[in-house]
């Protein structure tokens, strides 16, 4: 499998092979949650544990953003009393968590995914429908075409 150790090597040779989509998990209702099932296309690109950890952390961020508790009741009542004008002035809790998420995804991309030729797209840019993972192939390191190299990797397992 192609392991990238130097990001600069990829700069002039990276080309997109495919995009893998991790879909939403609706088993707990309409809360935002992504499936932790590992997509088969990424078998030889990244360790299962790493991706699962990323998805689980993202899910926990969304739980924190949508949490209904004592504080959100108070905020809801206060907002209602002011005819919801506060929503125009203040940054909502959800938006604060979304900023944290975008920082987290950037960090994960730099540390874990870019070295493996992958790139995560923040779900908010896809309408929270999917977690999109772009798969890049370095044409310089593998002489054969991307599809055949991936199939040869899978048969070698």
């Amino acid at each position, binding site marked *: 499998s192609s392991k990238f150790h130097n990001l600069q090597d990829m700069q002039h040779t990276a080309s997109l092979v495919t995009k893998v989509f991790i879909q939403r998990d609706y088993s707990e209702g309409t809360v935002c949650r992504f499936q932790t099932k590992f997509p088969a296309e990424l078998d030889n690109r990244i360790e299962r544990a790493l991706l699962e950890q990323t998805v689980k952390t993202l899910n926990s961020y969304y739980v924190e953003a949508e949490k209904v508790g004592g504080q959100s009741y108070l905020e809801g009542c206060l907002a209602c009393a002011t005819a919801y004008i506060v929503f125009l002035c203040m940054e909502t809790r959800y938006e604060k968590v979304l900023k944290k998420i975008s920082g987290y995804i950037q960090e994960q991309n730099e540390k874990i995914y870019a070295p493996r030729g992958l790139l995560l797209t923040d779900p908010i840019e896809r309408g929270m*429908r999917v977690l999109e993972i772009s798969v890049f192939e370095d044409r310089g390191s593998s002489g054969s075409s991307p599809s055949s190299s991936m199939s040869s990797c899978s048969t070698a397992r």
Partner: protein
Amino acid sequence: MKSREYQQIDPKALPTPTQSPPSHQHQAVGDDGRTPRRKWEVFPGKNRFFCDGRIMMARQSGVFPLTLGLILVTSGLFFIFDCPFLVKHLTSCIPAIGGVLFVFVLITLLQTSFTDPGILPRATPEEAADIERQIDDTGNASYRPPPRTKEVLINQQVIKLKYCFTCKMFRPPRTSHCSLCDNCVERFDHHCPWVGNCVGKRNYRFFYTFIVSLSFLTAFIFGCVTTHLALRAKGGKGLMFALQESPVELAICFFSVWSILGLSGFHTYLVASNLTTNEDIKGSWSGKSGEAVTNPYSHKNIFINCCSVLCVPMPPSLIDRRGFLPADEPAQTSGVDLELPNPSTKSDINVVGGSSHLVLDLQKSSADFSLFLNQTKPAALPA
């Protein structure tokens, strides 16, 4: 082909690594150097945008001007004709209370009408291709397959998710496609012509506050007008003469009080059971099909249901209205495909159109990735 994508990256536009993702950096500037376009200008749904994308409504504004007009006229007549009399004979709290209610009603009405109800942006061409590939794996691609549904288990109940042909995605639970606005809306309640917008997840609390405060306002005005007439009639000239002096207000209030009170009562019931108007009308959870189905979203407690509908943190708008279009942005999947009469050619054209969009987007993503790599600090490289 590959050299072309690198020429499009403008070195002067390279941001510091801590800024927003690369796709926002290339702006779709035309060859003649036009100002960059914002995403609301190419939005595929039937919506109208004002103030450079800050305000949005449905394209068919329905009777929204009428709603606004009725509220303004009735309140205006109240303040002009009834308040002076009642302040003199009763108390000066009356215009104060009326004023507060009036402002409340107006603000919540405007918020209901101008807020994004929870529109789901349409699937990108790659997502649509991915989903179609998954579906075609199980079915025959040569003829039009049966309506696509996917089953999920929510709270031990089987819910069918329908595939939306316009938006090219499986609709999340409680999401419905509004034909008037041509958008999928999350937690779709109904399309309200009175406010000129859909009512969905993001603006339901504004809508509910609007109708509750409107019922208080109309009931208050009705009460004040009746008191005014009663006092005048007692004053000497009789009820019929007093009635002639304020027929308009009385008529509007009389008819609207009952309908708005009824609507508020209905929506209070919906909030307490965590239902949407759409589900209630369709009878999704009433067990019409013979199975024992209950609402899987209800928390079985009125207080918790109310809080989970009205007090959840405000969700963000998923359509980035004021974001700039990235360079080489391919057109989003539109509903044009649906107008083709021949079902067998439809799937072919979907794939052909989708693959050309896919090629364009792949180039863009390669450019994004290279830009991302350029931004990454050397310290972040693994040893």
